[in-house]
Each structure stands twice: as C-alpha cells, then as structure tokens.
C-alpha cells in the first residue's frame, strides 16, 4: 500500500505530462484508487491516468521517480525533481585528461537534500535556485550517504519556479555532504558518522588487492584501539601505516556492519603521527568493560566485554547436529540444503544476558560452552546415548547457567531482534559482595 508521500512524486510526474489538463488532487485520488483499490501496477496506473485525461503516456519518465529521502545508496536509474541550492564547477584529471565537472546540493519539497555531481556538462548544466526534473540519474554511496550522479545518459528539464518550493530554513550542507569535524574515542563511534578525528594505536593490519574501475588498488584493514575499546578500520589509500604505531586520522567516516561501527578513511582523509604517551599494544588488548545499554546506543561493538545475568536459555542450546557441508543445524539428520547427511555433533549455548537496564542474546560455540559449563561434547554425547535423550543436556546447561552472573567477551551486532554477541570468552562473575556493599554504603552515607 503506497501512502501519500510515496504517491506524491508520481502525482507530480503525471501532472507534468498532462500540462494542466487535470488537478493534482484529482490525479492523486485516481492514482490512489488504481493502486490501492484495484491493485494495478504503478506503471500501468500512471499510463491509464495520463490517457484518461488525454495526455501522451509515452511522455512519462520510465525511470523510478523518487523523493530525495527515498534514494538508496546504489540506484541504477532514478528520476528526481528538485531545486539546486548550490553548484560549482571545477577541473579534475581523468586518465591524464583535464575535465570539468559540476557539483552541488539539490533539495526537494520535503526539505531533504543530496549532493550531486554532473560528469558531462554538455548533458546538464545546473544553475542555482532553479528547479529541474532530472531523469536517468544514478546514485553512489559516499561516506555512508547516497550521492546523485548525472552521467552521459541523463536528461534534464528545467521546471517552473512554483513546482518545487523548498521549505524555509533547511540547512544545506556544503557540497559533499560533510558535517563539522568531531573528535571521538573508539567507544563513541557510531554508524554513519562523518568527518571524524580519532587517535589510536594500530594493533594489527593486513593489506589486500582489490579491483576498482580505475584499476588495481591496495587497501589496508586492521584493528585500532584506544583506552575505550577496539575498532576495525579500512584505509582506502596507502598512508604507509605500520602495525604498532599511534595515528590520528582526520576526516574519517564510520560505516556499520550489522551495527558494528567500522572506521574508514580514504583520499580525503589525513593521517598524522602525534608524539604523545599512549597505552601500549598490550594494554590496549585487554578487556574493555562496557554496559549492554552503552553498546546498544552504538548499535554494536567489536571485541568488547560486558557483564549480566542469564535470564533465559533459548532453543538451540545443548547438543546439536550440523551438516558437514554447510555447518547448518540439521534436524533428524536432514540438512535443508544437502538432504540426508552424515551429521556432525556440536555443542552450543544461546542465552539472554540482562543487566537490569538492557538485554542481549549471547551465542557460545563449543569451546566456550565446554569451558564455561565444564561439560564436554564427549560427555554430552555419552549422556545422550545413555538417556536416549538429546534434550537432557540442555536441561543441565540451564541448571548451571540460569540466574548466574556472567562476564562475556565478544563482538556484538544488532538486527531486528536486538543485540547479539558472538562470545569468544565467558566466565562466571566473581563478586566481592562485602567490599562492594561497603563501597556503596559509603556513597550513600556521604549524602
């Protein structure tokens, strides 16, 4: 079901083709009727309405007409209607040849903005404070945001001033969509951050060759850390990084993977080597404690330690069997992909860990499960054989784990069901109740 906002660009497009032969509200009503009552396809509905009012359906754009806010990171062919807020031209060098391109910012009626680049000025020359219908453009991701590209297929049509009225007071980012620089620690990194400045020690690094449209390129990835945690990074240029050194990255950006923030820096970034005291690589490789709610605020975290109580044991805990081909869990020896297989036994624990303010799922593989519970896969198999019950071991895990406070280390990601940690180390928390109680008491008595 399309709502009013989603209908809006199509209504405008039909109105454009009809050149005043029908009112927008009539078009909107018709379109809503065709789509949502008669369930016709969008394309057919548009053509029907244009024909109904005596217009030429072939004048409709074929591309996908979108509002700026709805643009994806990688659109193949889109049509947008908007007003140019700013535009500048500059020289660049492409394959040794000088070339003039144009870049700027486009805004639409909803107040959304997007950076654009015109690659062929003979196809389009966008003037500020002018409305354009841009057809057959495409988008590419830049710093986690879509950017609109007008290539050699683009068709641009100037539109009347009243067709796009940009709300007053919208902030127009400078071309390129960058925000003001911000200096952050590792624990402050969040998905989609732009223009970050961060200092850390490179704990590990490797390089790899990738194919790009402009030829082979070497990229560098690794792990960087400060006293608040560790983060994976990717450098898209060769900054001559060395393992173990302390660097300050300026104009980096953050792209999340399943909520785990990852630092990226490329040709617009700068890398400096500050002379300063900084924790050693060894100090930076230890446990970094963070609360679940804190991790939740960042959407996830790489190699972090947290504490909580097990409040539930989920299905799939205990003795499980996997497909030898794809490692999927099999039921009764049948893999959903590979059919009947010689199943491989495995141990796994899936629990909910909760600290009273937030909760997350924690998944432990065999080695971690064995170490934590003291029950080995072999024992579990023996027991299952004896009792003829593969479920019994899950019950024993529950008895050992439920209501127990745990310290867990691992990488936390997030999806529609919340946070989930892939655990690399787990142990029962040992708490010195008396001294902690004393400490809390002194805090209250001060008040």
């Amino acid at each position, binding site marked *: 079901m399309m709502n009013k906002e989603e209908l809006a660009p199509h209504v405008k497009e039909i109105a454009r083709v009809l050149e005043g032969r029908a009112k927008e509200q009539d078009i909107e009503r018709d379109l809503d009727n065709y789509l949502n009552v008669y369930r016709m396809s969008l394309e057919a509905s548009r053509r029907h309405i244009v024909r109904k009012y005596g217009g030429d359906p072939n004048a409709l754009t074929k591309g996908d007409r979108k509002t700026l806010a709805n643009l994806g990171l990688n659109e193949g062919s889109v049509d947008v209607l908007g007003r140019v807020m700013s535009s500048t031209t500059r020289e660049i060098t492409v394959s040794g040849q000088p070339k003039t391109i144009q870049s700027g910012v486009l805004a639409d009626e909803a107040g959304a903005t997007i950076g654009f680049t015109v690659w062929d000025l003979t196809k389009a020359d966008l003037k500020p404070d002018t409305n354009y219908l841009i057809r057959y453009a495409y988008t590419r991701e830049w710093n986690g945001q879509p950017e609109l590209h007008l290539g050699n297929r683009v068709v641009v049509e100037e539109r009347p001033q009243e067709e796009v009225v940009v709300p007053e007071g919208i902030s127009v980012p400078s071309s390129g969509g960058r925000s003001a620089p911000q200096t952050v620690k590792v624990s402050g990194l969040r998905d989609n951050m732009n223009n970050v400045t961060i200092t850390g020690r490179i704990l590990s690094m490797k390089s790899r060759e990738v194919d790009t449209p402009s030829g082979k390129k070497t990229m560098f990835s690794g792990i960087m850390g400060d006293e608040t945690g560790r983060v994976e990074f990717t450098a898209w240029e060769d900054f001559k990084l060395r393992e173990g050194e302390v660097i300050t990255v300026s104009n980096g950006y953050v792209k999340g993977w399943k909520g785990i923030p990852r630092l990226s820096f490329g040709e617009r970034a700068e890398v400096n080597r500050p002379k300063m005291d900084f924790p050693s690589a060894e100090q930076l490789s230890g446990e970094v404690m963070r609360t679940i709610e804190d991790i939740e605020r960042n959407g996830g975290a790489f190699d972090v330690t947290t504490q909580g109580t097990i409040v539930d044991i989920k299905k799939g805990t205990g003795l499980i069997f996997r497909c030898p081909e794809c490692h999927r869990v099999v039921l009764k020896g049948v893999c959903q992909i590979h059919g009947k297989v010689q199943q491989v036994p495995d141990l796994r624990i899936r629990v909910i860990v909760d600290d009273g*303010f*937030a*909760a997350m799922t924690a998944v432990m593989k065999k080695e971690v499960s064995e170490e934590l519970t003291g029950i080995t896969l072999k024992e579990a198999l023996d027991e299952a054989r004896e009792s003829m019950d593969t479920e019994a071991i899950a019950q024993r895990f529950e008895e050992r784990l439920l*209501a*127990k*406070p745990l310290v867990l280390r691992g990488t936390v990601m997030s999806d529609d069901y919340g946070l989930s940690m892939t655990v690399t180390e787990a142990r029962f928390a040992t708490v010195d*109740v008396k001294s902690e*109680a004393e400490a*809390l*008491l002194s805090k209250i008595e001060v008040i």
Partner: protein
Amino acid sequence: MMMREPAWRVFASEFNASTLEFKGEGEKAPSYVITPLGAMINRLFIVGILTDMQNLGTDQDPYWRATVSDGTDRFYVYAGKYAPEASAALAKIEPPSFVAVIGKSRTYSSDEGKFYVSVRAEKVLTVDEHIKDNWLLETVRATLRRIDAMEEAMQMETPTVEGLVNLGFPAPLADGVVRAAEHYQDPDVNRFRGTVLEALEQLLPDRGFDLPLPRDMPTGPEEIDDEEIDDGEKEEVILKLIEKLDVNKKGASLPDLIKEAAKLGILEDELEEINNSLLDKGLIYEPTINRMKRI
C-alpha cells in the same frame, strides 16, 4: 526492532508501592508497572526467600501462588498452566529456600480503586546465597540510580525524557521517571534510600546503621485494624461471603471474594489463611481453579 524487555532489578517495597500502570498502543503492546522511582517494569528478575506456597488450582491443573521475601517486603508470584515450566519447577520447591524468579509484572485493581501488583513467573529456580547477595547488590545499585534520576527530574521545571537521557540515564528509565514524577507527585525518595540501607544491612550484618526516617508512612497498602473481628468470626464471615457470592452454583470466584473481603477489612493475605483453614476443616472446597464452594 523487537527488543526484549529488560528484567528490572527492584526491591519488593518499591514494586509494591506502585499505583501506576502504562499500556502501549496496539494489540500486542506490552504493559508496564511504573514504580514511584520510575522503574518501567514489564519483566523483572527477583531473588529472595520463598516463604510460602499455595496451590490455588487443582492437583491436575495447579495454579501456584508463592510469596518471595527480599527482606524489604514480599513479592507475590503466580505460576499456572500458561507457564508449565515455572509451575512444575515451583511445585518441587520446599519453602523456605532461596529462589530466583524471572517473570512479568501483573496488576489488579479492586472496585475501590486499590491497586495490586504481582509477578507472573516465566522461570523459577532455587539458588544459593551467593546469587541472592549478588542480586541484593545489583538491586541496590539499580535503586540508587533510579533515586538519582528521580531527584534530577524533581529539580527540573518540567522533567523530560530528553533531559534525563542527556544526563546519561537510559531511555526506558528516563521514560519511566518522567511518568512517575507526574503520577506520584513528589515521591518520597528518602523512603527508598531506607530500603537500600535495609538491603545493605543484610549484606553487612556486623555494621551499625543509621536509617533515615521516611517522611511519612508508606504509601502502599494501608494497615487495616485487625482487632475488630476475631479469627473465628472472620471464618464465619468468609463462609457467608462464599455462600453469597456463589450465584451460579459453581462456587464463588476468588477475585470476587478478595474484593468483597477487602471491603470488610480482610486483606488478600489473611483471606488466604482463612480459606486454608476452611479448606482444612472441610467446610469449603475448590470445584475449579479460583473458585470456592461451601460444602
């Protein structure tokens, strides 16, 4: 996101003092009990001593009611056929023992507008003293954090969720505190400082304590003067009540009975004792769960 509701750590005295419930919109929206300090409880994790247990149902279809004391007050914990695991686990526990309960908050309001809270168990298990101590510690910390949040809120002209989040409080707590500040109107925060000290006293039995005095008497269930009717008379009164409420010959429903007894100044706890006594004496029986019938 389908986020799992966190299991709040809250002392019984704070939980039982709650008189506010919040239901989200929509059919499947969760409901929350909001305590005077702003805990916004859908799920909770409690540890204490299981002091008393009763089957309000039948042998085939048990419906358990257990009281779990954390040293500040008692939680009422229920488990029936909708939580077979918890119900089965509870059946095996012999009071008194240390138990941990993970459950959902439930509320009940009487016709007089009295508000009762309880816990519907999801998981019940026996635990050792170490788990209990750790829980006390965690709950002290959580309670202090709520006291902190509530005091901050009370200093704001109009407390807002955003304002509290900016001070570093988690959003669900900030939400609860803003609602609580409005509903409870200047909640007696010091009373819960006293609760915290009581809990710490359990952990440090050798230390002397100066308990801050609450501003006034607890805002929870009022004390009822028991002296008016003596025990024998009370049984007689309840018997008559059961007869009177047995309109369809299937027995008097327990919620009705609780309601009517409360009007006569007999609270749920006491009613339970009376019912037990009557059951023991063979004067009444339970034809179905939650129904009492005169023999």
